């Protein structure tokens, strides 16, 4: 008994120390973002803010990032919805209407999720320039949808594979075809999977940097590019920068806080089956 209590105490101590390590950057971000500039002296970066919280950092940060946050939203929302619809259709077909070679097709699609995008970047830029979608948000949406096909197909396929085929057989007896079965049986059952995929695509596209920096021009920069630019500038106001970083990370943090269950499922799907 005593041994058990001792070992549990030890476990808790280790867990708390580790939790502190994981929370450290967030704590520091919060702390700094509410300080006035004269208290962000390097010496005092760990001390609590004196004389009140300074929300104006967030206002200043928001002023700098507002157009970019807007760009990101304009990109991420249509992207997440469209790519989940596409993934749902692909997943359904590859899970329930297998044809000869469909597993090969699936594997070939899946490979697209692992490639370093540097290996397709030059053709992509040339192609986007040729079809006049270079530099702006619609082009970025298209690119995210296309390179999102592997992961969205994977998540939906695994989900649909778990739905019993008897259910479809019953529908077939009632005379439903491939599209009818999707519309009346599979689609209404897919809400959890849609949640997973929409959240996953939202987070991915929001956090993505390479396509964003290469395919958009300055006035259409998403928030990651603008943030990186802000951090790289010569005169860094740390308090404003940290407030801006928090603002930039806020949407995905919120999604994680409130919809973490679905987020985790998307993560696991990314690991295939093992």
């Amino acid at each position, binding site marked *: 008994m005593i041994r058990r209590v001792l070992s549990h105490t030890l476990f808790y101590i280790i867990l708390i120390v580790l939790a502190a390590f994981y929370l450290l950057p967030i704590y520091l971000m919060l702390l700094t973002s509410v300080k006035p500039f004269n208290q962000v002296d390097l010496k005092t970066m760990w001390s609590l803010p004196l004389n009140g919280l300074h929300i104006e950092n967030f206002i200043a940060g928001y002023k700098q990032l507002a157009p970019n946050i807007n760009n990101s939203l304009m990109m991420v929302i249509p992207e997440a919805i469209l790519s989940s619809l596409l993934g749902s259709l692909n997943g359904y077909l590859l899970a329930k209407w297998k044809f000869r070679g469909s597993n090969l097709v699936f594997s070939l699609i899946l490979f697209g999720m692992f490639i370093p995008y*540097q290996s397709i970047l030059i053709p992509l830029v040339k192609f986007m320039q040729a079809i006049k979608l270079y530099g702006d948000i619609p082009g970025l949406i298209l690119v995210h949808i296309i390179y999102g096909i592997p992961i969205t197909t994977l998540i939906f396929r695994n989900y649909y594979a778990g739905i019993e085929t008897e259910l479809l057989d019953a529908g077939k007896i009632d005379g439903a075809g491939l599209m009818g079965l999707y519309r009346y049986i599979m689609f209404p059952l897919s809400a959890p999977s849609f949640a997973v995929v929409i959240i996953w695509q939202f987070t991915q596209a929001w956090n993505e940097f390479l396509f964003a920096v290469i395919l958009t021009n300055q006035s259409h920069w998403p928030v990651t590019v603008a943030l*990186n630019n802000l951090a790289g500038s010569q005169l860094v106001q740390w308090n404003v920068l940290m407030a801006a970083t928090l603002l930039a*990370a806020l949407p995905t943090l919120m999604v994680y806080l409130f919809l973490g269950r679905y987020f985790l499922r998307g993560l696991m799907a990314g690991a295939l089956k093992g």
Partner: protein
Amino acid sequence: MFRKFTLRVPRLILALGLILLSAVCIFTLRKTPLIIAGKNLTSIGLLVGGLIFYTGIVLIISMFENETVLSITLLLPSMAAVAIFVYGFIGWSIQVSLSKWKGLNPDYTWVGLKQYVILFQNNPRFAIDIRNTAMFTVGFILGCLILGLGLAILLDQKLKGETLFRGIFLFPMSISFIASGVVWGWLMNPATGNRITGLNLIFQSLGLKSLISLWHSTPMPWGMAFTVIPAVWQLSGFTMALYMGGMRSISDDLREAARVDGASEFQIYRYIIFPLLQPVTLSAVIILGHMSLKIFDLIVALGNKAISLDVPGIYMWTTTFDGTNYAQGAAIGILMLVSVAILVVPYLIHNMRTETQL
């Protein structure tokens, strides 16, 4: 193949209507560009027109009641997109990498493997990149596996507050590499003396002077080792979640049986749980490994393109878009692809095989 055919007049009319509509759409767009809110969206319009046309075709095919053909037809747009944007573009990149294209105007003059030879012979920067990537990959994978497994074991003890701790360990995963690079770049600030800051400041005030470090500004080659810290911070929780999933699928009966046989908790982990977790470790190594081989944004945000922290992803970017040496950039991109493919392709084939057996 098309033995069965049921004519459905309403569906046929709808299909023909859609085809006609798309024809009008595409024809108009070829004459006049589509401009919405100052954006030239002609290509998107053409794409939508094409999809409307395709819907008409799908409706007609659906009347043949051959589900395999219909299934392939419905998959075709995605398959075509992946075929072009993944495989076609890889082929195009390979072509660029075998050319001498330098400067803004494409020049596809064949020079064979020259660009690759340049990278491997007397190119100090690429040598640094390879060493940095190797160092980062080893540190990152080991760090994530050890910390992830450790956390999973701790949370496997059925302690109170498990959900809270799990949430804390996982949340860095939801933040972008850019945001985390910005924050860690500050925490790991190398300034000394009066300007000491970040983690170094904590160490100083705790009297742990020996821990004060230059972090990622440490002279080559060891600076790169410190970039592993933010990466592990972000992805060890993910590794933990993978292991927790693996542990959960091991039945309690198995552990109970071992306990009855007199095994200690340590022995249960050593002889029962760890061997059963090997497939999880394999997946984790593949996922983490392919991430580290193409690591890019974290290092950009952290190192501001410092040469000592250079990785192929950054080299490709600067060579291509700052130096306009397209052929050289393409060669770097293709080498990155090869390194990832060596890791991932056997895994994908293995996955496909085991699945066909089921």
